[in-house]
Every structure is written in structure tokens, then in C-alpha cells.
């Protein structure tokens, strides 16, 4: 059943069906613990979009998910399953933070930003490229190595922060706070339409994330390298026939993937906390997998998928606050259901929809 369906079905109707199913099942769960599902939805939407500060948080999470979603998507195009977004983003955060720590005495934020982008992306890229090299040269599966690299990154960052970055005599495991001049600007220009947004952590990284989407689109669909990536991803044997080097494609793609994940570090490190701290990515690397799956590895749809998960994150926090019987863990359950239906079982409804379509065609034809 691999029939071609119109684009709007593949990219619009099917994800929507999956999403509705996820909410339906989540609604039943909410009902089961004795709360009103519609009320819950209202809280989620209000929390995510109802007031400026909430919108800001939604955008803040969305920014993280766009970066990590793009990272997973780029790797998907070369049929590599990069589960290491978490570790790559963590290392990327280190790179961003080091740029700020080194330069915040001398330069304003816009002078630091290029260096932060460069260091953040390259730290992430190296962390992504190593599993790529291991796969291309030794056949070690990227799924396994990237998971392992997540664990390594957790320990490594623990060590680096504790040994080198922690301020003497301070109990909390974090670096010093950057000079205020090095902070990424908030989205104050949106204050007019969204009063209160500048009190949230939302910052300029959101715009950089959107630029990254354009970059990924051009890379994958407009460049010769992107063509080679897609050939390799669709058919490694055809790539061999076309003289495309596996090593080059896999290592470069994993580096770009890791670099995109690494850029996520801009958002929490330079834009929000303004210091290097423990657990910078906060699960965004994993959510990126669901975002890429749901967004079908296309930058435009990834923005929407990231926004959906941003909404669930921020709205879910509001929900847990407003309806105490729905705990933080319940919110995670709801998010898990969305991932399950929209990501892992993305093709569940496809055979039925395809059949409905062929029946309609028959009637018309």
C-alpha cells in the first residue's frame, strides 16, 4: 500500500488525524482521572497563547524544538537516525557559553553572536560527526553510538562545569553569569502586539531558528550536496553507482545535523540563563525526533510541529498549575501520546485514507 496521495493529504490530513486521535485518547485519560477534558484543553491553549508571557514561553520552547527537529530531519535525509540531539545540543551550549565567557568583557552581544554561533555549531558538529565517522568507517550503528554519546556528554559536561567553570565558593554547579551586554536581546519589538513577551525567556534565537529552516531547505533541495544526501538516503546502492562517497555524505550530514542541534544552545544559554548550567537541552534533543517525524523532515512542517510541542510544553505547565489533579507527569503522558500517534505511528491511518481515495477515484472515473 504505497500509493501516492495528494500532498495535502500526506502533509495535512494525515498528521491532523493522528493529532486528533492523540487528543482523543488523552481526553479519555483526563476523563478517567475525573477532570473535564475540554476544560483541560482550554487551560493548555490559554497557557500557551492567552497572554504575552505565556506566548513568550511557547516561542522559547518552540525555538529549541525547531533546532533539534531540523537536526534530526537533516540526518533523516541521509537515512541516519540521529538520536544524539540531546548530547549535541549540550555540547553546543558549552560552545555558546564559552564564546560569551571569553568575549563578554570586550564585545556587545552582536559582536559575540557570530563567535557563539561558530563555537556552538562546531561543538555540536564534532559531537555529531564522530558517530558519523564510526558508522562510515566501522559500520557502528548511529542509533547506538549517538545514544552512547548522549551519556558521554552528560558526564563530560558535569566534569567540565565542576572542574573548570564553577565559581569558587559557590555551591551551585554553573558558570558565572555573563555580562549583561552579552545577553541575547528579547523580542521587545513584539511588545506592542504581545504585551509581556519581554518578561519571558523568548529571545532573538527564535529568528535564528527560522533562518536555520531556510538554510536547511536550500541545503537539501537546492545544492549538489543536498542532492547527494537525498540520493544516499533513498538508495545507498544508487549513490554508489553515482560515485557518491558514503563517508563524505554520512560524516558531513551528521556534522551538519549535530551543528544544528548545537545551535540550540544559543537559546537557553545566551538568551535565557546567561550562564553555562547543568542539563542545558532539557529533553529538547529527544522531542526533536518527534518534531522531525511529524514534520516529515521538511523545514516548513517542522516549524509547525515544533510550535505544537512548544504549545504542549508551555500549556501543559499551565494545566498542571491550574488543575492540580493533573500532575506534571500527566502532562508528560499527554505529550507522550502525541509523540506516539504523530511520530511513531505516523502511517497508522494511511492505508484507510488511501483506500477511501481510490474508491472515490473509481466512482469519479
Amino acid at each position, binding site marked *: 500500500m504505497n500509493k*501516492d496521495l495528494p500532498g495535502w493529504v500526506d502533509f495535512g490530513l494525515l498528521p491532523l488525524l493522528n493529532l486528533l486521535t492523540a487528543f482523543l485518547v488523552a481526553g479519555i485519560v483526563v476523563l478517567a482521572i475525573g477532570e473535564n477534558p475540554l476544560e483541560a484543553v482550554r487551560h493548555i491553549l490559554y497557557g500557551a497563547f492567552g497572554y504575552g508571557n505565556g506566548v513568550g514561553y511557547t516561542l522559547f520552547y518552540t525555538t529549541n524544538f525547531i533546532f533539534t527537529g531540523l537536526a534530526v530531519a537533516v540526518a533523516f535525509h541521509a537515512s541516519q537516525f540521529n538520536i544524539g540531539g540531546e548530547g549535541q545540543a549540550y555540547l553546543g551550549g558549552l560552545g555558546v557559553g564559552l564564546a560569551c565567557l571569553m568575549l563578554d568583557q570586550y564585545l556587545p552581544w552582536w559582536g559575540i553572536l557570530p563567535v557563539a554561533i561558530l563555537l556552538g555549531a562546531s561543538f555540536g558538529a564534532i559531537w555529531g560527526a564522530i558517530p558519523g565517522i564510526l558508522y562510515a568507517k566501522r559500520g557502528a550503528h548511529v542509533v547506538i553510538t549517538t545514544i552512547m554519546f548522549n551519556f558521554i556528554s552528560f558526564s563530560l559536561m558535569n566534569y567540565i562545569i565542576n572542574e573548570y567553570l564553577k565559581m569558587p565558593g559557590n555551591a551551585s554547579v554553573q558558570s558565572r553569569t555573563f555580562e549583561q551586554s552579552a545577553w541575547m536581546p528579547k523580542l521587545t519589538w513584539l511588545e506592542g502586539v504581545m504585551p509581556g513577551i519581554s518578561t519571558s525567556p523568548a529571545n532573538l534565537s527564535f529568528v535564528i531558528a527560522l533562518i536555520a529552516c531556510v538554510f536547511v531547505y536550500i541545503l537539501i533541495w537546492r*545544492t*549538489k550536496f543536498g*542532492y547527494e544526501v*537525498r*540520493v544516499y538516503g533513498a538508495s545507498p546502492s544508487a549513490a554508489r*553507482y553515482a560515485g557518491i562517497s558514503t563517508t563524505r555524505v554520512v560524516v558531513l550530514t551528521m556534522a551538519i545535523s549535530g551543528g544544528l542541534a548545537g545551535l540550540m544552545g544559543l537559546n537557553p544559554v545566551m538568551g535565557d540563563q546567561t550562564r553555562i548550567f547543568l542539563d542545558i537541552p532539557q529533553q529538547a534533543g529527544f522531542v526533536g525526533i518527534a518534531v522531525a517525524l511529524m514534520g516529515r523532515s521538511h523545514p516548513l512542517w517542522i516549524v509547525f510541529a515544533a510550535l505544537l510541542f512548544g504549545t504542549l510544553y508551555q500549556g501543559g505547565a499551565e494545566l498542571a498549575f491550574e488543575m492540580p489533579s493533573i500532575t506534571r507527569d500527566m502532562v508528560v503522558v499527554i505529550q507522550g501520546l502525541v509523540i506516539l500517534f504523530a511520530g511513531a505511528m505516523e502511517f497508522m491511518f494511511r492505508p484507510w485514507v488511501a483506500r477511501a481515495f*481510490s474508491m472515490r477515484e473509481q466512482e469519479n472515473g
Partner: protein
Amino acid sequence: MTAPAIQLQGISKSFGSVHANRDIDLTVEKGTIHGIIGENGAGKSTLMSILYGFYQADRGTIAVDGTQVTIRDSDAAIGLGIGMVHQHFMLVEPFTVLENVMLGAEGGALLNKGRAEARQELQRLEKEYELNVDPDAIVGDLPVGLQQRVEILKALYRGAEILILDEPTGVLTPDEADHLFRILGQLRAQGKTVLLITHKLREIMAITDDVSVMRQGQMVATRHTADTSVEELAELMVGRRVLLQVDKGAATPGKVKLEVRNLEVVDDIGVRRVKDASFQVRAGEIVGIAGVSGNGQSELLEAIAGIGPIASGEVELFDISGEPTGWRPRHGLGHVPEDRHRMGLVTKFTARENTILGYQRDAEFGSGMFLDRKAVLEASKAQMERFDVRPPDPSLKAANFSGGNQQKIVLAREIEQDPDVLLIGQPTRGVDVGAIESIHRRLIELRDAGKAILLVSVELDEIRALSDRILVMFAGEIMGEVGPEASEREIGLLMSGVRAEDAA
């Protein structure tokens, strides 16, 4: 008169807007060998899948031994005594013959009892039908001819009275094919009914009692084999007169364009796939490499094309003045790979995107790191027009073209680069008769235009029709060279590893 083994009436089946089978009637008499021929996409496989319970017909009735039945799945088909030998074997390679035969019919949770019974039954079947296979041999170690026998044994073990064979000789040497036909003869003598699906007219003439011809989803004719001819069947298949013989003049070979010296290919696990191969191909000639699939031709072709590993030896290309030129894969050396689905095309991509496969870095498709999408589109349009690809739609996915048109897309891409040397693997595999004709004509034209062509094909007829010289490979070795006039028996012996001097 007994009821026919199979009687289909008014069978229709559509997939979306495609009518795969339209109002098909078919009567197969008990104890006969009935051939079904037709081009690719004529609906043969769909019809057999309906008979074997993979698909349900939209309309029409099926009667087996005179009783009307519904066949919901393959279990039901087996229950009715219908067995199928697929084109691609459905065997568990690490298992023994015995284990494969009893798979799915183990007869209980513990194997011992079933195994003893199966062994006994297997021995009886082998004796009865000349189907000699060692029950304890590992299937993966057996040659394809024997694996096919295991498939037949599987079907018989399940009590098949009607046996469907889908393109059974594609992987066999002429000798093995003859043996298969003897087995089918035995089966017929024992009262079994055989349905033989093939596109090889010669086989139909050699073995069947009756033959039905399908075209575009319809059953266009049924004949007693004795009352028909190859020419008539070919015409029925295509719907117009076809030239079965390729018209070609004598070759006028020029300078050596490609030279292969002492080429050795060793695979990942250390097996020598090509052993000390040396030969030349001159401008204006077609050199054919014959052999049963899997005897090193693919590895040889890939090594020359520069995409497979070379353990030792040399490949050299020469320019017009006879000077050696550099060897850069795909440039000056066109390559139409054997498997267009896995190599020649990215089936998920559009025809347009496939136009640059292998040439994506060339300056004509964009300077610097960006692709010039307009140039790609123009090239695609031009190639489709020149090679009469149908439909001429560059935005259509490669997977949605017919086999013949897919092959034309690949040929067009390689030929448009104007290479001196052209490597061509299986040019007409899965291509319908009408398109075969035009592809063959194109290859002769290229030869006459002074290209040096190396042709690899497992279709002996094709090799003999096109080649000016034929090299025969067996187990990685070039067994000998013969002219196109060599008899099938002569080539067949070489294909099975017997040199002329040994045979004498």
C-alpha cells in the same frame, strides 16, 4: 470428460483507476501444462495472485475441479490443492531442505514426529518426480536450480494438484531449465496440472499443451500450442507485428577502446568473484558476456564501471588516437547498471532528478555548490523527447514509469553524455516486448556510430542477437569466446563450466 482443473469466469480486478484484470475467462484442463504469456504489466501476476488468494477479484468466479470456490488467502489456495513457486524463492536459507519443506506444516509443537513423517514423504516425492535433493542440505548452499526444486517439493508436500510457476527459468542455465521441464513433464504424467507464467516464447513452444495470451489486463487468445507459432504469439502479446530478430549488419570494429587486463575481484568475505579476466572491446562492436546470473558478470561490470572494488589487474580506456586516457567512472564510460531499481534510478525521485544521477557535480548542471534546476529540467525534457519516454513528464516519479520507459530514462542519461565506451547490464530485464525491440535497435545504432559496447545479459537470446563476440563466464572465470553463430548447446556447456576441449 472431467471438469477442468481451473475455470475462471469474468475475473476483474482494479487498483485505483488501473484495471489490472478485465473480464478474464480461463480454462485449464486437468493434467496439462498451460502457459500464460504476456508483456510486463499485462496482468499475469495479478491473475495468479487472485488464484493464490493474495488478492480478491472485484468480480467473477473461480471454479476448481468444477466446484465454485472463494479463495480468501493462500491457506485457502493450498487447501484447494493450489501450489505456487514464486519467481523469488521464499526459502529460509540457513535451514535445511527438510526444515524448509515442513515450514508451516510442522504438525505439532514438537518437531520430532513431524520431521520423521516429512522425511518419509519427501523421499517418496523425490522418487516419483525426479526431484533429487538431499533433505539435510542447507538451502543457502544449494545452487538456484536445486533451490527451485525445493520450492516445488514444498508445494507438492502440501498436497498441490495444481502448480503455478512464475517465470521459473529466469535464474537457470539451459541445462537446468531442461531438467525443470522434465520434472514438469513428470508432474503432468502423474496427473498434476501446471500453470507456467513466462515471457519466453521458446519455453511455451517447448513444454506447454495450451497457451493463453494476456495483453493490457485482458485475455486476448487461447491456443493449442501445437496450432500456433512464435510469431503469432508475439503478435498477440504486443498487438502488432514484432521483429523478433534484430536487424543488423556486420560490425566494423575499429581501435581498442577498453582493455581489461588480469582483473581480479574479491568480495567482502574473501571469495574471488572474478578470476583473471582479460579482454578488449573495440570501437564499433558489441561484446556480450553470457552466463547464468551470479557467475561474476555483475562484479566484473561494476569493477570496470569503477563502483566495485578491484583486487588486482587493470582497466584502461583509450581515445581516438589509441592513447590511454584517464579512467574516471561515468565520464567517457557510460554505465547502464543491471538493476535499474536499485542502482540506475532512485525510484522515489522524479524523472528530472534522475537525469543527473552520477553527473550531479558536472558544471552543466550548475556552477559552484548549487544545482541549476532549470538546466536539469531542460536536459530531462530533451532526453525524454529524444528517447520517446512515455509519458514525457519530468515531474513524474521514476517508480511510476513502466519498466521499458524507466530503462529508456537510464539509457538516455548515459548515452547523452556521449561516452566512447558503454557498459550495459541486462538492458531489457522487466521490459516489455515492444520496448525491447526499440532498445535493441538503439544499441545497434550506437554500435554503428562507433561506440564500444560491453553487454552483460542473462538472456542468452539477447546476447546472441546483439553481440559480435560472446564471452562466457562461469564461476568468475571467462570460459571462452565464441561468435554469435555458436549453437545454444555450445554456449550452454560453457555456461555450466565445461570447456570445449573437456566436452570432446
